[in-house]
């Protein structure tokens, strides 16, 4: 596998990651979202492995495996269990309708490419072109948090942002130091436990997982 081929393969995977980020914005069903999230994790894991192979940074294989374990198997499994336990299969409401969200997403992607243009000029890594995608994934994750009302989608948006960050790290510098990645993985795991607990509490307190209910928590004058 030559470098050019690896770079092209990586670009393809980046494109698919971007596609999955848009799919997250468009999907209305919670189970659908969980599946897309798992696919995004898989793509991320593959991309990390490819970069690891092509650059000779072998610690990226461990990152890749970690991603596979965490984001493709464990987190989707936890979310899947939660969705079943809390019985939330129905369609979920968005604050902004899907076409508008997609248009906003496109603007953010263009913006990301514009932002990373100077970095692409400077960098000589083969992954430099995918940095824009990574940034776009972060922004799209955030957009998802802004436009959705359900607590589970908030978390999925957050996890998608984390995927974007991870991808940015591999694209910009061939990954973070091992210690940092292990730490991040542990954090994610703990976050998963915490949001699991919170979901139950929010659900019992408000009898709903609509985060707009939480506005009731605000101190009134």
């Amino acid at each position, binding site marked *: 596998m030559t470098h050019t081929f690896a770079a092209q393969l990586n670009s393809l995977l980046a494109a698919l990651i971007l596609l999955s980020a848009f799919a997250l914005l468009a999907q209305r069903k919670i189970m659908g979202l969980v599946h897309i999230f798992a696919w995004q994790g898989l793509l991320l894991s593959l991309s990390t492995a490819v970069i690891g192979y092509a650059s000779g940074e072998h610690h990226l294989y461990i990152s890749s495996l970690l991603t596979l374990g965490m984001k493709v198997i464990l987190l989707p499994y936890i979310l899947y269990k939660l969705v079943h336990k809390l019985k939330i299969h129905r369609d979920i409401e968005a604050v902004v309708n899907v076409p508008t969200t997609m248009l906003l997403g496109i603007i953010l992607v263009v913006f990301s490419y514009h932002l990373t243009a100077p970095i692409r000029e400077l960098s000589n890594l083969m992954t430099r072109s995918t940095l824009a995608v990574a940034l776009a994934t972060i*922004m799209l994750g*955030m957009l998802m*948090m802004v*436009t*959705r009302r359900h607590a589970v989608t908030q978390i999925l948006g957050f996890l998608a942002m984390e995927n974007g960050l991870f991808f940015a790290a591999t694209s910009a510098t061939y990954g973070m130091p091992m210690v940092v990645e292990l730490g991040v993985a542990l954090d994610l795991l703990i976050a998963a436990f915490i949001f699991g607990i919170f979901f139950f509490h929010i659900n019992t307190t408000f009898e709903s997982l609509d985060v707009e209910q*939480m*506005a009731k928590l605000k101190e009134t004058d």
Partner: protein
Amino acid sequence: MAQELVSPSTLIFTATLLAAFSGALLLVPRFLNASRGQLLATVAMLTASVLGLTGSVAVLLSGRTELFQLSWTLPFDQPEIGIDPLSAWFLLPIFLIPGCAALYARSYWHADNYPHNVRKTTFFFGLMSGFMGAVTVARDGITFLFAWEIMALAAYFLVATEDEKPEVSQAGTLYLITTHIGTLGLFALFSLLTLTVGTWLFPAVGSLDASSPIASALFLTALFGFGMKAGIMPFHIWLPSAHANAPSHVSAAMSGVILKVGIYGIIRTLSFFHTIPLWWGALVLLLGVVSGISGVAFAIGQHDLKRLLAYHSIENIGIIFMGIGVALIGQTIGSHPMVILGCAGALLHVLNHATFKALLFLGAGSVIHATGTREIDLMGGVARRLPYTALLFGVGAVAICGLPPLNGFVSELLIYLGFFRGIQESGVAAAATALAAPALAVVGGLAVACFVKVYGIVFLGAPRTEEHAAHHEAGWQMLAPMTVLALVCAVIGLAPALLGGLLQRATLTIFPLTAPLDTLEQLTSLAPLTSVSLMGVLLLVILGLLLPWYLRRLRSAPQGATVTWGCGYQRPVARMQYSASSFAELLTGLFAFVLKPQVHRPGVARGIFPSVTNFHSHVPEAVLELIYTPALERLYARFQPIRHMQNGILQQYVLYILITLVVLFLSDYL
């Protein structure tokens, strides 16, 4: 000179630590039962007092200055602690008052009566006392702020001892807010100071030029930050409610000493400067006059015994400020007598106010303990049931009024003499001091009126209600500390010359000499301290001679039980006696433009069978209720549109983050 066994500084540091952690064992649940733990803490506090007082007096006698470096690993300069006569002077009340108050608490706040809060109160009381000492020995900004914050927070927990009562928890919150605003001022002060001198260590005495703009900023932030803690008008808003709602021994320590730590901060900051501009002194003097007069005016209108005493603290802080103001003006115009008299007066009043105010608060605590209320208008006739408390409270009242032969007289005399020295000068200095002297006289006069009211209504007459008639004299653990404080008042009042040298040494650490000491006038020659003693003794002898005659007259007078101020009614009842409000009505009326008293007066009922009517008057905390609260409410209303941004909707918060992120990215291109 004989080799000393333990150096005074070691004594002081040991005492500080011992006091700070005297209640630590109580925090371990089930390790020690509360009563025994309280006893242990009291013993530790008393030991700390004895050690600390010995150390402080030794430092004051020798007049030496010592510095120690602490080794720690925080990323600031090497911290330093030190002892000099100024610190030692402030350590006197810091060790004396909490020691007395701790013994008092053993009976007043006994573990058996307050099982659910005695542990925290005892612990925080020790912590507060110890870290007050730490504040005065700190010699760099960081150590100072650490000690200051621990002291201030410990005091919060003490104020909020009975936080299940809404008014107590409100008073605590008000205190917490104001103390943090004050600390904000101190952060500004020490940051500016560090910028100026390039290190966190305190600069040497008189090493900074006071004429630069940054020096003025330092002075103003110090005045704000420390003034907040000292309770100077108009930063006193926390003080009345905090003092009134804390347990009495805590009020005694707070009013007696914590306020003084604020004064210490101001004096320490002032000592860094030379060539002090005239307006500094004038401003301090003005604040002193305002605090003095308005403090006592507010006090006269109060019905709550402890609130009343709290307002007197504001008045006395005003008197101390007047002394500092005189000293600063003297420093500016180069008048050595003014510096010595003003500063010595202020420092002596620090010690005096600590002793007699603590005495009064402890006395008030005994009265409240016996009657079960803080309302002056419900008490009456306490002197018959609590004769010792009445006597000791009387000593405190005479002392706080500045009457001979007690200590309040001496310190006020020194400040008066400073004023008179100033009047002999020319220009602004003469004008300022000439205007301040009558103000101090007004303060003294009003204080007498106020304490005649308190003593007359609370201790004399007959009990107004059976429910709140005093039942029992306080125990020895409450009387002993009060006796000690009363004796200190008397000794300072009768033999002020004992303290002359110590005061002069403490003064000279703040305002260094401009000429050799021998060529300048000494405190003992500036103030007639010996005549004060002679006059005091003479007064006591005259009183002693008049006493048998008075007692004989009393015996020969017709005896009969009736109500005081019966006014010739056929069947007077106790409720007809003068009340606190009626006694003070004339004076509150005079000061109505500041006090804004609220009077509910429905009019006298007419007819043969008049219906029930009632009269109600109240002097609010005018500065808080008429200035700060409306100002804050207006600010709140003004910012209402911005508060819509914070609407509790999660998505919008994330949107704010997204927008901020995008704007930050974009700002790179602009």
